[in-house]
């Protein structure tokens, strides 16, 4: 029987064909939605380490900063309609962002480290915190 494929689970058949194969297919399109799709497919492989952005943590942090901006503005601006308008204007700057679509496929591989970062969400977080800091600086708080 001829051996055509290296299989991770056949430990005795290690013939040294440990070519690491990491294919990445990324497509980004401009949308006003906040999309984040990440696929990591690992097939017939062993010793794979995957490190990825905790999107859940990022989203809750994002919400936290948005709430903080709202709180600062509603305290500082007496009128709630005026405060709402400012929040709306700020949202227009931060909302537009690209969607994150990543696909990582690992097949028939061994000892692979995969590190993926959702840079879109990182940029958005950074921008939001900068806006919050800019607001409190203009209020002489920081």
């Amino acid at each position, binding site marked *: 029987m001829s051996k055509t494929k290296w299989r991770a689970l056949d430990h005795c058949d290690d013939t040294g064909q440990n070519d690491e194969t990491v294919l990445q297919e990324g497509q980004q399109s401009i949308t006003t939605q906040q999309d984040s799709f990440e696929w990591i497919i*690992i097939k017939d*492989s*062993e*010793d*794979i*380490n*995957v*490190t*990825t*952005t*905790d999107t859940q*943590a*990022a989203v809750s*942090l994002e919400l*936290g*900063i948005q709430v*903080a901006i709202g*709180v*600062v503005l509603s*305290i*500082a*601006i*007496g009128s709630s309609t*005026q405060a709402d*308008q*400012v929040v709306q*204007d*700020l949202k227009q*700057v931060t909302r537009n962002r690209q969607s994150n679509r990543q696909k990582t496929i690992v097949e028939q591989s061994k000892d692979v480290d995969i*590190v993926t*970062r959702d840079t879109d969400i*990182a*940029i958005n*977080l*950074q*921008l939001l*915190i*900068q*806006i*919050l*800091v*800019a*607001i*409190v*600086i*203009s*209020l*002489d*708080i*920081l």
Partner: protein
Amino acid sequence: MNDSSKQPFVPEKVVQLMVDSIFKKNGIKPEEMKRNISDEQKQMLREMVNDLRKQVDQFNKGNNDITKSSD
């Protein structure tokens, strides 16, 4: 300040200008806003902002990343 806040994605001045222009557009004067906040509130807001800033820095450093390993 640490590395990630030293190198923001958008220059700080740009954000400051943008915030100022949004205030101006809505007829809001920073001087009036300053009068609306008590010293106690200022202290609380300062702590809140610093705390959030710390969390963002930690996130940018990848401290919150999830790692999964196969056996």
